[in-house]
């Protein structure tokens, strides 16, 4: 590029109004929605659409009532989607094939399910058994002990005490002498190694021992030592007869029944494989009948049962038989009920009520999985109730005294077993069943809190709630048998919360119950009850009752800082309240609510609670808040949240908190009282100093306020509104610097400047823009996008483009020179180290546009009531000359970049840049000036020199020139076209 003639920029005169009209694309009236034919005919098209496949007639024409002209249009436009798909959209094509795939699957499944239906409909059993595994975990964690335990077994190593054990000689089970002999040998082996007792075990060691027994059993089984396996099972179940360390009994029960389950499964599998091995027709079906089982397998099965029937002791005999009860199915299909009833009666022989209760529990669980007859469950329940007095018998009392366990906690050991039995007894859950159980209790004169509690847990809450007052009577009538009454009230509370009691009972219920609850002396018991009953109040009563309960709770929990022990309950109270009130405003309307929150003294818990409330607030709050009480309350919570933020807080946490606070800020609306609104924002700024996001929100909100003001006055500010918007602008200007992120600051400055400008606050706008420009050098080189650092050039370029469009209409401040801000901007662009050189030149190109526009007589857009430079200077020649000079400088910069590209042989970029510049020249410069024209030609040459130009852009450029040439004053364009044709 030669430098022979210095470039002289002369802007073209433009009439933006005319141009806008000319370049606007053609518009036509339409009668039909353009997207309609695509989704229109789906099913009617079935018959013909397949046959027609040419693209021309693709969109189907069979739709009745489609206007004629449209068909022509579609024929010409040949909808590409339609053509590809034979005229029907893919979905309806699927639909054509008789049925859609989903319903087809559904139908198939339905067919397939038919024979299985019987099983699937029985899912109650599965559910319940599933639930048992959940309960197991709960039992294991709940019933633990620090007492020392002892275990009696002959299968574990270690231990020194040797106890000779009298052993009942069972009959050798099989007539195959060889086998029997072999087994007897095994038997002797164990007989010789006699039972050892290991005492003084901790719970962990004990559990480990049981685990060891478990693996021992499996190993014995796998090595064909079935007798050993059986003996291990017997010894395990023998442990269940021992109620030493009662607190641990439920857990022991769970551990050991697990082993027994495994044993039962092993026996069953073994018999099954035996049956299948001897069978001609291979595998047995899932629901086989005994006559499918070959005689040999039956004989083995019988041997098992004979063997078990000869177990000397009651408890092991019972447990092991239950464990393998399922294998009865090899012998008979009808005897389950009888067997279960027989076993149920057998439990009557177990003297220890706890052992008996858990034996019933195991019986019910196993019985459930093998038969559909439920009579044994009721039998068990009845037996339990009949023998209920046994719980308070002399031997139990003596034992408790020995172990130093109080009756109350002893009784709670029964709850898992009893709950389970009652839950099964309550199935399928008719009201009549509940009445039956209650009648039985009454007839047997059982007034036990334990039973009543399990009844309330087991039966559907609806039935309990329906006769809630009756239950209150029952609870108060209960014997003082040591079962804690508060648990009963708590359980009743859970019922009435889950299902609504009759409306007329609400008041009496709450009054009666609360009278008892508020008299509970133990704070823990009180908290457990109150936690439940407050939900009852919150659900069915108004805020007065809830407030009263809160007041009562505060009264109970404050002495001795008792609340410190009950944070979980208090927390749950808060979440209950939040769950049960639609409008959080109501909560703040209660005078005790905030006092209640004050009980959370521990910082972590307090913050958590505040977060909980704020989350609910942000979720549920739809309409604006203006009640100062509520605002104060929420402000208090937000301040707690805000104050919890410190240097250690992680970003995510900060963001969460900020989001909650922003949610609150957005919800506050004083309507037309803008000054109060601004005052609120000022307070908020003072309160939440640490959070960027909050400041961001505040600045946005205040800007919104300013814009709202402008809207209301319709752009004509009075003295009062003018000073108000100035205050807003000032607020923004002061607030922005406290935000740490440069990016946010830049954006907010620009926004605030724009808002100030639109409100005719020129000084404030100038200040904002100036501040933004001053900030640009601080702009980081990289910003994080999706966790990866990326060059910030792109962002800054976009930002500056936006900035420039604003600058066009910003009038020059009188005390500064011409185009003061634009020059500042140019400086910024020039001094910044850009990652890629082209982002800089791209910006120069934009500046060129800006400058060209500034030189026009009238600018393309204005702000109402703000005189931009066009009006300010009135196209003063001095001003124009200054603009042109700047243009020249900018173009020179671009030229130097073009030369730089030449040096580095970056021809593709050079071509595209020169084409861009050519475009700018053609659009904005006066081509009649010889220098412009010449340079335009040169640029064209440069662009084509290495053949690296983008042909599409070239095409568009030529097309544009042609259009321009057709317009009045387009002679120069014509010349340029001619020059171009000549060159190529």
């Amino acid at each position, binding site marked *: 590029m030669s430098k022979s003639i210095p470039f002289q920029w002369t802007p073209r005169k433009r009439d933006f109004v005319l141009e806008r009209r000319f370049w606007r694309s053609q518009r036509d009236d339409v009668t039909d929605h353009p997207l309609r034919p695509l989704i229109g005919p789906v099913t009617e098209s079935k018959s013909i659409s397949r046959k027609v496949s040419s693209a021309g007639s693709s969109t189907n024409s069979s739709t009745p009532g489609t206007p004629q002209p449209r068909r022509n249009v579609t024929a010409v436009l040949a909808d590409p989607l339609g053509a590809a798909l034979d005229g029907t959209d893919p979905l309806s094509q699927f639909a054509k094939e008789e049925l859609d795939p989903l319903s087809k699957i559904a139908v198939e499944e339905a067919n397939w399910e038919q024979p299985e239906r019987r099983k699937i409909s029985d899912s109650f059993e599965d559910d319940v058994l599933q639930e048992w595994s959940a309960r197991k975990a709960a039992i294991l964690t709940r019933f633990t002990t620090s007492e020392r335990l002892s275990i009696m077994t002959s299968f574990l190593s270690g231990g020194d005490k040797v106890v000779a054990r009298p052993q*009942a*000689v*069972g*009959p*050798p089970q099989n*007539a*195959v*002498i060889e086998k029997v002999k072999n087994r007897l040998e095994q038997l002797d082996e164990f007989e010789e190694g006699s039972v050892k007792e290991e005492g003084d075990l901790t719970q962990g060691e004990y559990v480990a021992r049981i685990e060891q027994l478990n693996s021992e059993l499996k190993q014995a089984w796998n090595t064909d030592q079935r007798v050993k396996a059986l003996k291990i099972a017997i010894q395990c179940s023998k442990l269940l*007869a021992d109620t030493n360390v009662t607190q641990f009994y439920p857990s022991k029960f769970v551990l050991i029944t697990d082993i027994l389950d495994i044993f039962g499964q092993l026996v069953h599998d073994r018999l099954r494989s035996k049956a299948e091995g001897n069978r001609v027709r291979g595998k047995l079906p899932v629901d086989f009948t005994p006559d499918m089982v*070959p*005689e*040999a397998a*039956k*004989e083995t099965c*019988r041997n098992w*049962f*004979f063997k078990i*029937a*000869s177990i*000397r*002791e*009651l*408890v092991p*005999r019972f447990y092991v038989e239950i464990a393998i009860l399922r294998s009865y199915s090899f012998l008979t299909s009808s005897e389950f009920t009888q067997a279960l009833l*027989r076993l149920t*009666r*057998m439990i*009557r*022989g*177990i*003297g*220890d*009520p706890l*052992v008996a209760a858990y034996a019933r529990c195991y019986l019910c669980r196993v019985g459930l999985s093998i038969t559909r007859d439920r009579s044994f469950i009721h039998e068990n329940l009845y*037996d339990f109730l*009949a*023998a209920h*007095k*046994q719980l308070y*018998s*002399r*031997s139990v009392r003596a034992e408790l005294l020995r172990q130093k366990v109080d009756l109350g906690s002893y009784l709670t050991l029964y709850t898992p077993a009893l709950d389970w039995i009652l839950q099964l007894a309550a199935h399928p859950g008719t009201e009549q069943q509940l009445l039956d159980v209650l009648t039985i209790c009454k007839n047997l004169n059982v007034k036990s809190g334990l039973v009543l509690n399990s009844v309330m847990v087991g039966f559907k809450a609806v039935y309990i709630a329906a006769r809630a007052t009756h239950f209150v009577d029952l609870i108060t009538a209960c014997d003082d048998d040591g079962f804690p009454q508060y648990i009963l009230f708590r359980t009743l509370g859970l019922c009435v919360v889950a299902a609504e009691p009759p409306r007329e009972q609400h008041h009496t219920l709450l009054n009666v119950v609360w009278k008892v609850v508020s008299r509970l002396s133990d704070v823990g018991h009180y908290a457990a009850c109150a936690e439940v009953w407050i939900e009852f109040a919150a659900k069915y009563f108004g805020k007065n009752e809830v407030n009263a309960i809160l007041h009562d709770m505060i009264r109970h929990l404050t002495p001795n800082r008792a609340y410190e022990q009950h944070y979980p309950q208090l927390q749950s109270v808060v979440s209950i309240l939040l769950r049960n009130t639609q409008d959080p405003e109501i909560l703040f309307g209660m005078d005790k609510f905030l006092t209640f929150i004050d009980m959370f003294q521990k910082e972590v818990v307090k913050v958590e609670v505040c977060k909980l409330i704020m989350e609910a607030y942000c979720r549920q709050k739809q309409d604006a808040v203006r009640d100062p009480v509520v605002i104060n309350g929420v402000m208090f919570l937000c301040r707690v949240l805000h104050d919890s933020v410190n240097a250690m807080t992680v970003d995510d946490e900060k963001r969460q908190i900020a989001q909650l606070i922003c949610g609150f800020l957005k919800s506050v609306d004083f309507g037309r009282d803008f000054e109060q609104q601004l005052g609120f924002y000022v307070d908020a700024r003072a309160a939440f100093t640490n959070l960027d996001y909050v400041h961001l929100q505040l600045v946005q909100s205040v800007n919104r306020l300013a814009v709202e003001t402008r809207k209301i006055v319709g752009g004509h500010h009075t003295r009062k509104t003018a000073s108000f918007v100035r205050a807003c602008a000032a607020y923004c200007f002061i607030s922005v610097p406290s935000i740490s992120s440069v990016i946010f600051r830049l954006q907010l400055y620009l926004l605030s400047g724009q808002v100030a400008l639109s409100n005719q606050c020129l000084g404030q706008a100038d200040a904002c823009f100036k501040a933004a420009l001053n900030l640009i050098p601080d702009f980081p080189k990289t910003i994080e996008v999706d966790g990866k650092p990326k060059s910030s050039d792109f962002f800054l370029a976009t930002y500056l483009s936006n900035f420039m469009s604003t600058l066009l209409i910003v009038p020059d401040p009188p005390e500064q020179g011409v185009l003061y801000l634009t020059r500042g901007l140019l400086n910024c662009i020039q001094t910044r180290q850009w990652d890629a050189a082209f982002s800089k030149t791209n910006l120069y190109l934009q500046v060129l546009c800006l400058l060209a526009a500034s030189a026009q007589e009238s600018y393309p857009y204005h702000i109402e009531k703000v005189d931009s430079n066009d009006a300010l200077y009135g196209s003063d020649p001095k001003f124009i000359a200054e603009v042109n000079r700047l243009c020249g400088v900018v173009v020179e910069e671009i030229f130097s970049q073009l030369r730089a590209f030449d040096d580095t042989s970056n021809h593709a970029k050079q071509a595209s840049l020169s084409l861009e510049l050519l475009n700018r020249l053609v659009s904005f410069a006066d081509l009649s000036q010889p220098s412009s024209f010449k340079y335009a030609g040169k640029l064209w040459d440069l662009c084509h020199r290495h053949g690296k130009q983008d042909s599409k852009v070239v095409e568009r450029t030529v097309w544009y020139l042609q259009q321009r040439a057709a317009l009045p004053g387009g002679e120069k364009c014509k010349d340029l076209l001619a020059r171009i044709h000549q060159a190529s």
Partner: protein
Amino acid sequence: MAANIEILVRKANKVYHEGEIISGVVVVVSPSDVRHDGITLFADGNVNLQLSSKNVGIFEAFYNSVKPVSLVSCVLEVASAGKIPAGKTEIPFEFPLRARSSKPLYETYHGVFVSIQYMLKCEIRRSFLAKDLVKTAEFIVEYNLNKCPKSESKPVQFVISPDSLQNVKERARIPRFKITGHLDSTVCCLRKPFTGELIVQHSEIPIKSVELQLVRVETCGCAEGYSRDATEIQNIQIGEGDVSCGIAIPIHMVFPRLFTCPTLTTSSFKIEFEVNIVVIFQDDHLITENFPIVLTRS
């Protein structure tokens, strides 16, 4: 490597009735050919009697054991001399189960002083340098259900209290108690459980255990006199710990196989059964109530 012999009868439970045909196979598994001088199957049924040392002196018991009574004796040549190829060879056999004399066949019974056993013995005779191969297997004989005496319902009510006890040394030391109950029948079918109910009405001292003891009473008669011995077959606990008062505890016991048979009285021996209800108190006081029972097959 020696050959391995096994005797398999057709029925899986090996139970046969008099007059039935016993069929089965002798399975010979051998890694090499076995040359033999004939394979013979013996079926023998014997009553073995032994005098207990309690009734007669220890030496008499040893020497004077009563001669066994032979019930079945049957010899069957299943293969004549020849060679059994290596691998698994099955040789079928079949013979009718018939008594040797006019006496009926007794049921299989494994006892202490009396036992009735039926054995199959297979013998592979070999040249006198090699040892004969012998294998025995037991099979079980039961009465034909239609031809034997039936069980009948003979319920028994019982009340056990300090006053009902015999054999008491210090009546004053016995705790006060009352236990009532009933047995469904004292003539019981072997194939069905022994049932009844027991109710502890009251008891001064807590009960430790309630048990059911099945006892066999075997009588051997011979020229010198006879011996009668009662021994325990099994002991089944039906009540564990301090059982609750006023609640009926089921009495339930399955008769073990082989160790029980229908009550049998012959000229030379008797097999009878009794059930004891044993109550043990916490202070280890033990009281027993005895019930003779008659067992039948059907």
